[in-house]
């Protein structure tokens, strides 16, 4: 028998399950592990999507027994799993394969190595490793180098992968340095930079909408598209992570990664195959085609803002400067609007307007493709008073769906035209509980599929785009324009798009 293939695993119906593996989580007692990673792993176990031979080894500085670690995670999973209450039988069976290793000094890595080797024998994980860096970025370099030095990173029997959480640096230079550090020990193919946005069902649906349908692609270009608006708006403030946020800002927090990833998915050329590197090659090409912003252009192409006190859903919320950890002179932006050109054959001259902010009126993520008006108007201005140009909106959240706005005749005598929206809600066609983004991405990382992870060149292109804007802002003595919480950003952002004779959509 060919022992590399399981002969029983034929047939579409059997869900894909990754090969046996040991997952090693650095920062095993931290917030990310407790709130996201372990709940996602438990939910995968509950859906029978984890391999029979699978272990999780949490690594941290604290002294903790396996039993205490399991207890700690039990409570976290019970609180954060998307299927509550949790099934205690399934949990205890899953928890038997949960271990904890305390690593306080270099010697700790030898303990870890011994523990993993024992588990390989006992459980049958065969040296397959998924390392997950769920620590603050400042610890990355030490961990990666120790893994290399103690010959933990690779072994003769299994594959190795390492998952890294954002932020991937705070500018091009630091991102590049981070990649260099990782690559001292791991190859680029083994590095999985996680951007949880890409794990969302509807973000993957952008690829399906564009490339599994033949009717959208022919009009997906400068000839038919007037402009594109991409909005990631949040009604939340920065409470709870103020310290990090005040040093980062909206551009680094969301625009550099999530927003530019959405832009790349909308603007990219059709990949020749649904393969990790082929898809990412096309995304990088789209990002490379984006016109660079020189510091002189910043005023024309970018607007920032900072929120003041206001009302969200009827509740009064404090302004950014009223938060305790915010430095009194802080110019950190909580709102960014950008105008971006993709200088290639497909998009030449078509602007992409990107917008992101905290404390905007509602939480919404959407991509709106605004089409050109018809070349010749058959109908009089009175008849088409209620007609707006065709718009195709891809809603990412909250209610995932697609809506197409088109003109229709109002049923009265004579001609009167107004725009109607044809709404397709994914939830109404396929009403299943969509998996959490971390479930999707962990399963992909365990299976070694990097399609939904960000490659080094993508990250670096993204920094190359935002770095000049960030440095112009940091050099400027002016405070960012202000906007009241619960409004759609500063007046400057409206003026910025109205200069081009366009308006922001209301998502």
């Amino acid at each position, binding site marked *: 028998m060919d022992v590399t293939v399981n002969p*029983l695993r034929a047939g579409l119906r059997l869900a894909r399950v990754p090969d046996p593996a040991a997952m090693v989580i650095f920062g095993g007692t931290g917030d990310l592990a407790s709130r996201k990673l372990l709940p996602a792993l438990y939910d995968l176990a509950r859906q029978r999507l984890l391999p*029979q031979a699978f272990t999780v080894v949490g690594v941290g500085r604290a002294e903790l027994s396996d039993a205490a670690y399991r207890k700690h995670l039990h409570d976290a999973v019970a609180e954060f799993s998307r299927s509550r209450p949790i*099934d205690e039988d399934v949990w205890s069976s899953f928890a038997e*394969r949960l271990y904890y290793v305390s690593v306080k000094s270099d010697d700790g890595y030898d303990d870890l190595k011994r523990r993993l080797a024992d588990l390989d024998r006992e459980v*049958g994980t065969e040296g397959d490793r998924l390392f997950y860096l769920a620590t603050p970025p400042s610890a990355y370099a030490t961990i990666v180098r120790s893994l290399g030095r103690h010959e933990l990173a690779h072994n003769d029997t299994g594959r190795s992968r390492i998952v890294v959480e954002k932020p991937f640096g705070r500018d091009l230079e630091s991102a590049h340095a981070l990649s260099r550090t990782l690559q001292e020990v791991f190859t680029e193919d083994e590095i999985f930079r996680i951007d949880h946005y890409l794990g969302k069902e509807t973000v993957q649906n952008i690829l399906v909408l564009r490339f599994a349908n033949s009717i959208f692609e022919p009009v997906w270009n400068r000839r038919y598209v007037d402009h594109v608006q991409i909005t990631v708006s949040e009604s939340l403030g920065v409470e709870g992570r103020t310290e990090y946020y005040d040093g980062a800002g909206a551009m680094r927090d969301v625009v550099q990664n999530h927003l530019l990833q959405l832009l790349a998915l909308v603007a990219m050329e059709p990949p020749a195959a649904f393969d990790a590197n082929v898809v990412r090659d096309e995304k990088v090409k789209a990002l490379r085609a984006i016109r660079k912003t020189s510091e002189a252009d910043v005023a024309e192409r970018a607007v920032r803002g900072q929120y003041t006190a206001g009302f969200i859903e009827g509740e009064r919320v404090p302004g950014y400067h009223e938060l305790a950890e915010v430095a009194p002179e802080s110019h950190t932006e909580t709102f960014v609007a950008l105008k971006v050109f993709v200088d290639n054959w497909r998009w030449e001259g078509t602007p992409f307007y990107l917008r992101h902010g905290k404390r905007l009126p509602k939480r919404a993520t959407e991509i709106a493709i605004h089409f050109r008006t018809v070349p010749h108007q058959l109908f009089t201005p009175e008849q088409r008073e209620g007609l707006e140009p065709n718009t195709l909106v891809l809603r990412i959240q909250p209610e995932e769906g697609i809506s197409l706005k088109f003109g229709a005749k109002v049923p009265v005598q004579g001609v009167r035209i*107004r725009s109607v929206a044809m709404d397709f*809600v994914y939830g109404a066609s396929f009403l299943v509980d969509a998996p959490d983004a971390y479930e999707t991405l962990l399963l992909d990382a365990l299976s070694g599929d990097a399609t939904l992870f960000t490659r080094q060149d993508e990250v670096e292109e993204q920094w190359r785009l935002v770095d000049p804007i960030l440095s112009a802002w940091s050099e400027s003595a002016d405070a960012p324009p202000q906007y009241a919480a619960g409004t759609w950003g500063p007046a400057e952002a409206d003026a910025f798009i109205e200069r081009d004779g366009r308006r922001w959509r209301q998502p």
Partner: protein
Amino acid sequence: MSSAVDRAVWGTQAPSLAALEGDLARVRRGRSAHVREQVATVARAAVVNIVVVAVREMHARRAARTVSELAMRHPSRAIIVLSDRAAAPDAPPRIDLYAQIPAIDRSAMVSYEQILVSASGRATDRLVSVVVPLLVPDLPVFLWWTDAPPIGARHFEELVAISDRLVVDSADFARPEETLPELSHVCSLGARRCGLTDLNWGRVTCWRELVTQLFDVPAWRPWLDRVDGIRIAFGVDADGRQVHPSQALLLVGWLASRLGWTAAEPISPSEAGGYLFAVRRRDGEVVRVRIRPRYALGMGAGDVVAVRIEASDGAHRAEFAVTRAAGGRNAVASVLLDGRPVSERSLPHAQNDVVELLSEELTIVAADRVYEEALATLLRLS
């Protein structure tokens, strides 16, 4: 007869197809009125036509409830054909139509329409002429036959010919190993091939999944070549009257087809509804198969309760087992080497109610090759 139809369940009677479509359109317009005020139109995001055939009103009702529960995941137009053989066979042939759009609370955007086609007298040869104009164009047609299908009957073959999938449940068949291949033949007759789906096969999916995952572990995979015994237990009621071994037999058929096993001794009945037989491995060695009924609390009649795969390489013995825990909610997958447990985990078992089974079938439009091979292998073994 129309008087036997409960209007509360089946909606209002329509005098003609055109009137019925008119009624449905009116209801749709009413439902979407509030949405239209916001200048949006309600898209009818239906993904499938479901034609249900039932011979008893009770079965039709049960099927209607199942399909409406499915509507959240698979918005559909359901055409329920009730052709009651018992009701007044000598009455003049007659077909009545009833329509309704049941309210579904979670989202007004979901489109689910239910039409009852009630035939009385000798009206079966007219059925297909009513069903065809009711189908929503461009959507696949699933034909769900709630009883054992009347093989050879014209209306059955006509309905299969317009369908993309025939859904049956071999748990209800007296001799599934004979009926299923015949159905498979009927399905291949039409110009476009209709796929055959057996809900009973859906019931063993979770078992296949869990057994397969045991052999995803590279260290244990070689044991598949050294299997020398299979033991499968299936549920019966307390007095042992309801004996349905078909799921257990399908599992054996599946293992044999995947591992290339052939017949050694024909399948023969053993004590109390079980089977005892032998198959031959690729290398000629014999695998003893024992299937037996077992009473287990909370388990449906015929549901598999435990699968044990025994293997030996001369020096060592291994046992791979998946068993459903008491109550049936969870399953335990375990591995023993020389009697010593080396791996054990507890997982939720799939809930095999009809809604879940059908829902799963509706997500897969293609024919299931693995099922067909398992069935063919089972036939060769018997």
